[in-house]
């Protein structure tokens, strides 16, 4: 293991329609984000021979997207790990690029769910042994995890609210973020309860938006317009589909994906300058900080307290505002990669983490079911 480290790099990143994009289809948004990502790299749609995409509306996401974009890809990957799919695609793309199966990999996603229906779109089937109990998907699963975490470790609703508040403070420095209004801990805590202990402010946003990244093999990356952001390590871990199959509701397979990703990269949590975690709900951030080794199990609540992960805190987490305040168009994974790329290139404006060389992107899929960790870095981190 380890020969994938530095094998490929992100050379383009693009977004479109973040927040609200009325009157534009999800495929139109994907096309806009993809074109932007390719233009950054000095490439065109004609150069793309690897397509990696998942969808909540198309049963054949790679076929539909390839046709729409005018691609005839040699490599298509549409593995559906939920929102974590896109971190998985970075690993798959690195493998395909290293093996020479494709030369230009496009990883993309888009949704117009907010404009189209105003709600979270899903094709997810209800697990047979859960359906009778009407578990509101996906929030009920996260609520059960949060309740158990509070029971075992004394985590509080205030600590969950700290996660939402930190996300908003980062979002306020991101002109692209959907929710940038002032808020307070009290306001977050008094929000309408959805599934105890999670209120509406513990939930990610429902937005439109598309994102795309372009990857090429490392040797080609050096000739591109922007500084390459290298793949340093990555790993996926799937433990179950339905939340009732979890052995322990307070530990996710991020523990395993993180360990393997760090091992591939030859890095440890203390080496990471900026952290992008899939915050579908506030409990996610706490669980993943623990499972990825930024603090001990049970100490995530204390870690985020007092603005610990907000601007000026001890670890910059979800610097774009996250799914909680930036955007969440159904699947959020690709946006973690885009924000990490911008941070590592030094393009993040007011929210720039000074001197960021190494970023961790952590995707979550299903309901804490599949976890994928990817470490990215500048040339200096190789």
């Amino acid at each position: 293991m380890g020969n994938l480290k530095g094998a490929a790099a992100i050379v383009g990143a693009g977004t479109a329609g973040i927040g609200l994009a009325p009157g534009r289809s999800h495929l139109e948004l994907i096309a806009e984000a993809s074109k932007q990502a390719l233009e950054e790299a000095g490439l065109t749609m004609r150069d793309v021979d690897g397509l990696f995409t998942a969808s909540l509306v198309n049963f054949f996401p790679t076929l539909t997207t390839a046709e729409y974009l005018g691609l005839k890809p040699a490599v298509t990957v549409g593995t559906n790990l939920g929102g974590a799919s896109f971190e998985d695609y970075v690993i798959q793309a690195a493998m395909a690029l290293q093996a020479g199966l494709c030369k230009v990999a496009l990883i993309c996603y888009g949704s117009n769910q907010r404009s189209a229906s105003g709600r979270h779109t899903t094709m997810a089937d209800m697990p047979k042994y859960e359906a009778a109990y009407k578990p509101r998907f996906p929030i009920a699963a996260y609520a059960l995890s949060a309740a158990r975490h509070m029971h075992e470790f004394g985590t509080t609703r205030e600590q969950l609210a700290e996660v939402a508040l930190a996300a908003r403070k980062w979002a306020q420095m991101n002109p692209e973020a959907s929710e940038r209004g002032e808020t307070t801990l009290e306001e977050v805590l008094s929000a309408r309860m959805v599934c105890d202990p999670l209120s509406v402010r513990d939930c990610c946003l429902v937005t439109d938006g598309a994102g795309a990244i372009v990857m090429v093999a490392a040797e080609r990356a050096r000739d591109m317009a922007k500084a390459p952001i290298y793949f340093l390590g990555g790993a996926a871990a799937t433990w179950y589909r339905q939340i009732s199959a979890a052995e322990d509701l307070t530990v996710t397979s991020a523990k395993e994906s993180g360990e393997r990703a760090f091992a591939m990269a030859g890095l440890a949590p203390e080496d990471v300058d900026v952290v992008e975690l899939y915050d579908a709900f506030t409990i996610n951030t706490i669980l993943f900080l623990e499972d990825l080794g930024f603090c001990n199990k049970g100490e995530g609540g204390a870690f985020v307290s007092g603005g610990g992960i907000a601007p000026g805190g001890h670890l910059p987490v979800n610097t774009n505002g996250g799914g909680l305040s930036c955007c969440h168009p159904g699947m959020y994974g690709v946006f973690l990669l885009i924000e990490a790329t911008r941070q590592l290139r030094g393009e993040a404006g007011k929210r720039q983490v000074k001197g960021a060389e190494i970023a961790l992107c952590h995707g979550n899929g299903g309901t804490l079911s599949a976890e994928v960790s990817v470490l990215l870095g500048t040339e200096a981190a190789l």
Partner: protein
Amino acid sequence: MSETERLGPDAEFEERLKEGRFCIQRCEDTGRHVFYPRRFSPYSGSDNLTWVEACGNGKVYSTTIIRQKPERGGDYNLSIIELAEGPKLMSRVESVRPEEVAIGMAVKARIARDGDTAFVVFDPA
């Protein structure tokens, strides 16, 4: 029994439930109980699985209240129950208000019916 008459574990589970028996599987290779029903043991990979009647005792491993407007049926409980035999399952604790359900609470299984289907719910023990 001929091959075409043999039921799979899902159907066997449902049949027993309709007869009023909440049965789970036991992996005879490891001694561990299995829920939900499987064709092969997730612990050993073999088909050395036998059906045993669950004792029905369990405790609440985690719980939430799904908030819902009264006109749509009102709030309801959703829990994960850890059976005395070991496995966990999703269910609902009934006979008490949702906010009275707490982690660690001892509960007892009951078979509930909704039209043609039967499913396991729990009441405080």
